[in-house]
């Protein structure tokens, strides 16, 4: 049972690198990397909002839930 982060796929769809996104939403690459690799314990609404705005997606596009 886990929450999966689909940041990789979204970045690929938008032909954007992690560094580009980090620059645009104003958080460090290190922090964004924590999110991308699934190590994050929590995501601020403000971060989620900025990612969704930049990648033109819904929170559900970024985070998915699976029972495995």
């Amino acid at each position: 049972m886990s929450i999966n982060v689909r940041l990789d796929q979204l970045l690929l769809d938008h032909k954007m690198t992690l560094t580009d996104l980090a620059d645009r939403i104003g958080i460090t690459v290190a922090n964004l990397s924590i999110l991308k690799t699934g190590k994050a314990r929590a995501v601020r609404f403000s971060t989620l909002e900025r990612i969704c705005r930049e990648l033109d997606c819904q929170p559900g596009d970024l985070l998915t839930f699976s029972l495995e």
Partner: protein
Amino acid sequence: MSTRLPRLLRGFTTLGMVLLAGATIALIILGALLIGNDGLQSADLAVPIQFSVDADAYPLISESWGNGQISRAVGTATFDDPSFGLAIAAAAAVIAGVVAAFIVLILLRRIFGTMVVGTPFLTENVTRIRWLGFIVIGAAVVEQIIQIALGLIVLDNVSSTGLDIAYHFDLNLAAVFVGLIILSLAEVFRYGMTLQADSDLTV
């Protein structure tokens, strides 16, 4: 977070270690000179004792509380020519105190060092603070054990006319409480550590 205060505190602990090392070396040299020349000084071998006093000999008079008497007193026994065993026991107390103080200063220096570099909420610091607590409590207990040992040696070898001498039991409760407070601080740090980890992994 400003690192000025941790730097200052780390500097104080370094200074404390240098002063303590200097004082210890001076004490060793002085001790060696005293043993080499004219024996140990009585002042170096003060043993805390308590004794009964003849209640009639020292009456206390108070207008507010009526008459009173001194029944038990605490004092210090000093000896001009102490035995080697007594000297060793007294020296052990001093050495134990110096070692404990040194360890405390080293631990404090390392804790302040982590504050200079970054966050103090680390597993190492929890262990260090826990050790500080144990050392403070341990020092009070060991001091008491040594005092009792010294008292027993004195009681075995000394007789006094008119005084009922006993070893002085006076556990430093303040130190024990401070030690317990430090131990609780270690737990606070442990909780702080989990909050820090949460904060670090929140994006």
